[in-house]
């Protein structure tokens, strides 16, 4: 527990001491705003909700979350500090959790800083704030799933660039898998049961419900299972690298 908290603190600290964190926050906030108003048609819909805002999140995270996750382990192996960290009395699982939670909290901060859009929608109309809160929580959970993929990819390589590209590619595939166009394309080739299974594996299917502010247990389970699964894979990968 001590070990995990120490790692968490150190990671959070290193996010905020470098300018990268502030650059990230600014880009995230600007993109979230611009995409909501222009691509999402926030005004044109004439509805007092944040669905266009949340609809953009799976795509926004596709670029930004891999950037947050890429240094997680790749930087440590490159600079040699991995040897220091792994010879301190902290287990791989604790170190992974500490790093993951720090990055997740950081993205949580970014999400909280989008509050002006919540104020805007409340100023313009009477939205259901419960739905908006559910949307935020769901979105944060989805960011956690992206991050866990990034943590695993970062554990796989010493290069941050490779970690970024692989994370973005995996997330993109998982997003695409649920798009109707893609599923229709495969309709002839695969049986409907498998098609349905692939659809359920996709991030976008679960993200849609979240954007509407519906926190279904199945969607929550999907994201929690993704986080646990990818983090476990990352820990196993790091352990395998010790033996190899």
């Amino acid at each position, binding site marked *: 527990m*001590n*070990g995990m*908290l*120490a*790692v968490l*603190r*150190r990671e959070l*600290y*290193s996010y905020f*001491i*470098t300018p990268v964190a502030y650059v990230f926050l600014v880009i995230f906030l600007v993109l979230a705003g611009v995409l909501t108003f222009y691509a999402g048609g926030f005004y044109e819909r004439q509805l007092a909700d944040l669905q266009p805002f949340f609809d953009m999140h799976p795509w926004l995270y596709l670029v930004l979350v891999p950037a947050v996750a890429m240094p997680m382990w790749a930087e440590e192996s490159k*600079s*040699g*500090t*991995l*040897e*220091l960290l*792994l*010879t*301190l*009395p*902290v*287990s791989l699982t604790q170190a992974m959790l500490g790093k993951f939670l720090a990055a997740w909290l950081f993205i949580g901060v970014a999400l909280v800083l989008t509050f002006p859009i919540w104020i805007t929608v409340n100023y313009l109309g009477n939205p259901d704030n419960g739905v908006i809160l559910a949307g935020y929580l769901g979105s944060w959970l989805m960011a956690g799933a992206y991050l866990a993929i990034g943590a695993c990819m970062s554990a796989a390589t010493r290069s941050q660039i490779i970690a970024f590209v692989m994370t973005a590619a995996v997330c993109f595939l998982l997003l695409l898998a649920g798009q109707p166009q893609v599923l229709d394309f495969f309709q002839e080739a695969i049986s409907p049961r498998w098609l349905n299974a692939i659809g359920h594996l996709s991030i976008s299917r679960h993200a849609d419900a979240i954007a509407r502010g519906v926190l279904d247990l199945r969607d929550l389970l999907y994201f929690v299972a993704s986080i646990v699964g990818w983090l476990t894979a990352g820990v196993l990968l790091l*352990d395998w690298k*010790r*033996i190899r």
Partner: protein
Amino acid sequence: MIQTELLTRCYGLLTAVDALSLRAEPGQVLGLLGPNGAGKSTAMRMIAGFLAPTSGTALVCGHDIRKEPLKAKRALGYLPEGAPSYDEMTVREFLEFIARIRGLGADVAHRRFDEVIARLQLEEVLEQSIGTLSKGLRRRVGLAQAILHDPPVLMLDEPTDGLDPNQKQAVRSLIDAMARERTILISTHLLEEVHALCNRVAIIANGRLLADATPAELEQRSRYHGAVSFSAAGSDVSRQMLERLPQVAAVEVDPLDGRVTVFPRPGQPILDEVLALLRTQGLEVSEIQLERGRLDEVFRQITTSPNLGGRA
């Protein structure tokens, strides 16, 4: 206490550490000596828990690194090769992080922090980020990290590599001061370091343990052990006479400065005989020395014997 039992590590077909069995007790400074690529760092990385052994195991203070890795790591202070640390942190923040991750209580951490900072003379750079420090200072920060929790076992991978002579001296006296109650394992390829620090030496090459002895015992294996060397005017004349002495095995004259070295037959003291001869010859001896033995010669002899194969 550190003990390794048939510790082995393979990278694919290459065996980097081959059935290494060592034992170091409290109060001992054991030097792992070997050419570059001999497997010193790999062995240390396994004991420290960074790499997993292919077979065999190691005990740190009785804790098996395979079965109780966290307990073993708690008992160990480890300076990895090159002293890696988080460049963006200041020295103070880095050591505070180490104290937290090692679970030191606030008052213990505070006391140890002050002690370690004073011992390694880091007061002036406490608020500097580690990335801006010189190589010598970074090494000292690495040492501070390794001894912060006052570990019973200390393992230092090339602790003085790349330091200037003054810094080397400072690090050596630090290790010397800590050696009394602790078990210390250092790796080095510097022979002077073995003389200065270690009370036991393990020579390894190609991952295998080739010798485990005190520095004095190793020196005795040198053909220079007990040899007498001197500089004298007209030493050419005396060469034949020296060779005729029954205890003398060989006489060599350095072609550059004319220094004469007289090698004894094994176990035969020759200093008195050589002195007597020089006196009767009336040679003007400007300097004379009884050799203890040369570690570099023993090292070369052990690590390059023909049965070792090519890699070194």
